[in-house]
């Protein structure tokens, strides 16, 4: 076939100027590599978070303070204290709620013998361990007496325990929180990172203790419950209960009027899916800018090439090349550049993602290395299209050359 001969000639031409070919492809290589890297990391984060969400089980429901537009808007800041401890108590009594845990984040320094740490202090109840499937292997989790008696008992995350006690055994030792002495009753096994929070740096105290000893206010950060039956149905029960308790007159059920929001595990996954695809689109848009710039680079070098090879074009026309033959030659060359650039870029992007996943896996458990094949195929297709689009003008310019003028060109 004639075009096979053209492809061969083009490859020879490109190989003859390796450095220039490589520099020309660089924009495309970087563009494609970043598309692959971005989508790979995006898929990695998505997989991780969805796994974490799934670990709560499909029957988990989260109740957060703050209303506002719940179809993706931020919560109302003035309502961030709307969820009270008494709300939790009422929710826990609902018939389809099998377990409920209030969660309140407290900011305080934890210290021991001159060593200070500022962990996330999670004030909660006995049920927290059950809802998060935590099995304490050293010491124990709170029991009813800790919570009912508002005892100064504290459970440490694994790396917090290491920070404070080194290799020593923390169980039975004491630490100071806001000048009050707490008794370490347990150390959690390694839990890793959840929603970008290092759970191993956290400390856990009974919520009753927090209310009495550390902070007077009784609002909660969120409430986590496990329900029976249809989670949406149970969520609706909680919604009605809270509207009643908060005196929200909302017969039409407009969630914008609420001062709280309910998220089932399924909804959370769906919302997160939206966020991550928006993020992927955003990152891909940035990467496409580099592809565009790469395309301009291709066009530039192809224009130089057309000028340099004016006499060759004249000769080829004298030998019987039609306009479309010259056009095809330069388009094929531009597309070879971008396709080859795309190939190198895809390999580079995949290698970088792989290296990245090795590093991330050291920090975050459960990180998976994913190179989405559809992204690779898309990137390759886009690279080819870039070659076609940005090669078109130079190819046309070449095809239009007058053979006599072209042969006279010095």
């Amino acid at each position, binding site marked *: 076939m004639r075009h096979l001969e053209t492809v061969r000639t083009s490859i020879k031409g490109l190989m003859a100027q390796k450095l220039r070919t490589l520099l020309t492809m660089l924009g495309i290589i970087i563009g494609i590599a970043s598309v692959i890297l971005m989508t790979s990391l995006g898929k990695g984060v998505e997989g991780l978070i969805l796994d974490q969400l799934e670990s709560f089980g499909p029957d988990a429901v989260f109740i957060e303070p703050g209303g506002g537009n719940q179809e993706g808007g931020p919560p109302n800041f003035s309502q961030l204290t709307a969820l009270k401890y008494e709300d939790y108590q009422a929710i826990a009594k609902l018939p389809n709620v099998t377990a409920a845990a209030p969660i309140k984040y407290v900011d305080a320094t934890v210290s021991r013998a001159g060593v200070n740490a500022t962990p996330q202090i999670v004030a909660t109840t006995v049920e927290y361990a059950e809802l998060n499937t935590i099995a304490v292997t050293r010491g124990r989790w709170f029991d009813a007496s800790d919570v009912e008696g508002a005892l100064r008992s504290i459970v440490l995350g694994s790396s917090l325990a290491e920070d404070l006690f080194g290799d020593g055994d923390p169980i039975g030792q004491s630490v100071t929180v806001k000048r009050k002495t707490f008794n370490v009753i347990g150390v959690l096994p390694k839990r890793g990172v959840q929603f970008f929070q290092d759970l191993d740096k956290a400390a856990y105290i009974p919520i009753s203790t927090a209310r009495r000893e550390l902070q007077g206010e009784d609002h909660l950060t969120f409430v986590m419950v496990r329900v029976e039956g249809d989670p949406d149905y149970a969520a609706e029960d909680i919604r009605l209960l809270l509207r009643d308790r908060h005196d929200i007159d909302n017969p039409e059920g407009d969630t914008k009027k609420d001062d709280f929001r309910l998220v089932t595990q399924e909804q959370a996954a769906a919302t997160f899916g939206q966020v991550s695809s928006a993020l992927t689109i955003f990152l891909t848009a940035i990467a496409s800018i580099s592809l565009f710039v790469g395309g301009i680079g291709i066009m530039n070098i192809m224009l130089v090439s057309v000028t340099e090879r004016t006499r060759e074009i004249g*000769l080829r026309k004298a030998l019987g090349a039609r306009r479309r033959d010259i056009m095809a030659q330069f388009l094929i060359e531009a597309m070879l550049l971008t396709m080859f650039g795309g190939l190198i870029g895809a390999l580079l992007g995949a290698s970088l993602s792989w290296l990245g996943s090795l590093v991330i896996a050291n920090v975050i458990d459960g990180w998976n290395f994913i190179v989405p094949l559809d992204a690779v195929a898309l990137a390759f297709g886009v690279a080819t299209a870039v070659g076609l689009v940005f090669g078109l003008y130079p190819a046309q310019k070449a095809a239009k050359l007058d053979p006599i003028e072209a042969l006279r060109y010095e």
Partner: protein
Amino acid sequence: MANGNGGTPLIRVRDLRKDYVDGDLETPVLKGVSFGIEKGEFIAIMGPSGSGKSTLMHILGFLDHATEGMYEFDGKDVSRQSDDDLALMRRDRVGFVFQAFFLLPELSALDNVKLALAYHDISDRERDARAVEAIEAVGLGHRKDYSVTRISGGEKQRVAIARALVSKPAVIFADEPTGNLDSKSGGVVMEILEDLNEKGNTIILVTHEKETAEHANRIISMRDGVIEGDVTVQARKSAKGGMLNK
């Protein structure tokens, strides 16, 4: 007149005109040229620069359109052909040898010859076979794999002749083929052209040198866009036989 043998001439032009338009300025380059060329002739179109000989060759070689007049090639009117049709005529019916060789430096001698078959729908095997045959016909079989940057000027022009020959054209146009060569290499090139003519190829040579033109068996002299003389040389000057006739 053409040394006709009664059949249809290969090339027939009547009142061929060409004007170059540059803005408002219209410069006539060919002012009505008429002649015929038979198959197997070796013609020299001679004249000083600006005489219109190159323009005439470009039109005859399908590289350019005439502004006015009739051009018949092999019995077919080709005066009003589209660009694509002209490209096909260049591909199938004519071959060019240029003063500056126009070889692609990144290719070997053989690949340069094959370039003339790049736009033919033939198999690789046939392309190879025909290119080898052509390069052997100009006596450069032993140089076929050489880069054209590593062969002499005379050899380069012989590669270019092989390239003009490989598509088995009806006419070979040679535009000042010895212009960039020393007299010895030029002599070899003219000898090859004569040889090709003796094997039946029609050759149209364009030159401003009387010496070179005398290798042809018919000389069309041009001046200022018109034919000034059309002489058939019975005993031409041969490169092979030295000075047979002067």
